[in-house]
C-alpha cells in the first residue's frame, strides 16, 4: 500500500496541533489542581483586611498582594519607558532610516533581542556598582533600575513589531495617501499607523507579557522578598515570578509549595486578563480609527 505524502503531512500536522493542545491542557489542569485549594483572600492578603491592604493603610505580611502590586507597577513603569521609545524607533527604522545607518541600527536591535535576560540583569547590577564607585554613593538596586532593565529587554519586540508592521503594508495602502497629497508625516500618522495598529498592539501585549514573567533581570536589580509595596521608584519591590521562585526553592513544607502554585495561578490569571483586555481594546481601536472624520 502506498501512503500519499499529503495524507502523511495532514496526519502529522494534526498530531502536532493535538500535542500542543494536550500539553497546555495538562499544564493548566495541574496548576489548577495544585493552586486552586489555596486560592483565597488569605493567599493575597494574609490576616490584613483587604480594603486596608489595597489602600495601603496596613502592611500585608502573609499574603502575596505586595508581589501582585509590584508586578503591576513594574509592568507600568517599564511600559512607560519602552513603548514610546520602541514605537518611535520602529517608525524611524521603517520610514526614515536608510542605507548603512539602517543596517547598523537593525544590527543593534538584533543584538539587543538576542541578549539573555540574565545578561541584562548583570548589566543593571554592574551599572549600580559603577555609580556607587563614582558620583552616586547611595545608588542602589531599585524599582527604577529594574524597570529600566526590563524596558531594555522588551524594547526589541516593540521595535521589530512596529517596523515589520509598517514595512509589510501593501503598496496600495502605502501609495494611496501620498497620491492624495498627504505629506510623509500625515501618511504615517493617518494611514500607515492605523493600518498597522493591530500588529503594533500585538507587539505591546507580547512585551507586557514578557515584562510580567521575567525573573532573571529583576533578581539582580531590585526585587527582594518581603519588601512590601514600593512607595517610591528608589524602593525595593516584590514581584510574582520572583515570589514563585523563592517559595519553590526554599519551601520547607508542602503548604509553602502549595502557595507557590497559588502564586503561579494568579500570575497566569493576570497575564490571561491582560490578553483578554487587549483583545477588546484592539477591537475598539480598529473601530475608532475607521469612524468619524
Amino acid at each position, binding site marked *: 500500500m502506498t501512503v500519499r505524502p499529503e495524507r502523511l503531512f495532514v496526519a502529522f500536522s494534526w498530531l502536532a496541533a493535538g500535542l500542543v493542545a494536550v500539553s497546555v491542557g495538562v499544564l493548566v489542569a495541574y496548576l489548577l489542581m495544585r493552586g486552586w485549594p489555596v486560592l483565597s483572600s488569605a493567599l493575597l492578603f494574609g490576616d490584613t483586611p483587604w480594603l486596608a491592604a489595597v489602600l495601603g493603610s496596613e502592611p500585608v505580611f502573609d499574603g502575596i498582594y505586595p508581589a501582585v502590586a509590584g508586578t503591576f507597577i513594574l509592568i507600568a513603569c517599564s511600559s512607560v519607558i519602552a513603548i514610546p521609545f520602541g514605537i518611535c524607533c520602529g517608525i524611524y527604522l521603517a520610514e526614515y532610516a536608510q542605507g548603512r545607518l539602517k543596517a547598523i541600527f537593525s544590527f543593534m536591535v538584533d543584538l539587543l533581542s538576542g541578549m539573555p535576560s540574565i545578561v541584562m540583569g548583570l548589566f543593571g547590577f554592574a551599572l549600580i556598582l559603577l555609580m556607587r564607585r563614582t558620583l552616586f554613593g547611595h545608588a542602589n538596586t531599585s524599582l527604577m533600575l529594574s524597570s529600566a532593565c526590563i524596558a531594555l529587554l522588551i524594547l526589541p519586540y516593540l521595535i521589530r513589531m512596529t517596523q515589520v508592521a509598517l514595512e509589510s503594508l501593501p503598496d496600495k495602502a502605502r501609495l494611496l495617501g501620498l497620491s492624495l497629497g*498627504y505629506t510623509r508625516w500625515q501618511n504615517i500618522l493617518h494611514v500607515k499607523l492605523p493600518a498597522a495598529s493591530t500588529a503594533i498592539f500585538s507587539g505591546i501585549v507580547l512585551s507586557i507579557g514578557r515584562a510580567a514573567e521575567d525573573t532573571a533581570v529583576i533578581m539582580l536589580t531590585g526585587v527582594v522578598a518581603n519588601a512590601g509595596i514600593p512607595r517610591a521608584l528608589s524602593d525595593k519591590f516584590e514581584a510574582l515570578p520572583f515570589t514563585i521562585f523563592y517559595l519553590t526553592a526554599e519551601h520547607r513544607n508542602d503548604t509553602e509549595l502549595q502557595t507557590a502554585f497559588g502564586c503561579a495561578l494568579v500570575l497566569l490569571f493576570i497575564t490571561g486578563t491582560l490578553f483578554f483586555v487587549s483583545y477588546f481594546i484592539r477591537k475598539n481601536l480598529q473601530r475608532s480609527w*475607521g469612524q468619524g472624520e
Partner: protein
Amino acid sequence: MTAQETAISVRALSVGFSGRTILDDVSMDVPRNSITMIIGPSGSGKTTLLRSVNRLNEEFAGCSTAGSVKMSFSGTAVDIYRDLTPNELRRRVGMVFQSPNVFPFSIQKNLLAPLRLVHSIGRKERHQRMERVLREVELWEEVCDRLGDNAVTLSGGQQQRLCLARALALSPEVLLLDEPTASLDVRSAGKIEELLTKLKERYTILAVSHSIRQVKLIADRVVILSGGAIARTLEHRDFQNPGLLEELVEEIF
C-alpha cells in the same frame, strides 16, 4: 479643430526599476481640458507612465527616472521633477488607482479626512463637498444612509466611484485615471464615461483604458503604448475611421 494649449508635455521620459527599463524615451503631449487615453498590452508600462506624472514611481526602491515632464498650471509651465516637491505636485494632480483603493475607514471619512488634511477645509464645507462629489459620481443615493459604514463593505464598482469622488473633492487640475471603469458593469461604466466628458470642461484628463469602444466614445486623443514605447498617437478624427483603431490594435498588441 483649434490648436489646444498643452497641459502636460512629456519629453524623452525613461523609467527603470532596478536597472530594468520599463519606459523607453516616451514623448507625448496632453492637451488641456480634454481626455487623452493610453491603451496598450498588459505590462506595456501604462500604469508606470501615469505614475510618472504624479511622481509616484519614486516611492519604489530602485526606481530611476530620466527625461522631463512639464506641466502648465494657470499659464506657466513648470518642470514637475525640478520645480515642485512631490507633495506640491500631488495636491494638484488627482489619481484613481487601477483597482479600487479605499481607506479601511468609513465612507465619509474616506472623503472628509483628505479634505481636512490636504486643504484644511472647515467642517461645514467638507460635508457640502462630500455630498456634491458623491452626487457627481452618482453614488449619493446608494450610500447617503450608510455613510458611517466601512468603505470596504461597498462593491468594487461603488468603491471605484468613491475613489473618483475623493479625487474630485480635492479639486485637482489634472486627473490621472487608471482604468476607471474596469470593475464596473456596462451601465455604471456608461455613467462614468458620461461624467468624464462633462469633467473635461474643468480638468485635464489622462486615463488608461482597455476598451476600444470607450476610447472611440470619449477620447480626444489616444496613445498606443507597446513595450514601454509609444507606438502611435492618434487624434479624435483619425480613429473615428471605422476599423482603423481595431486594425492598429490587432497589429500592435
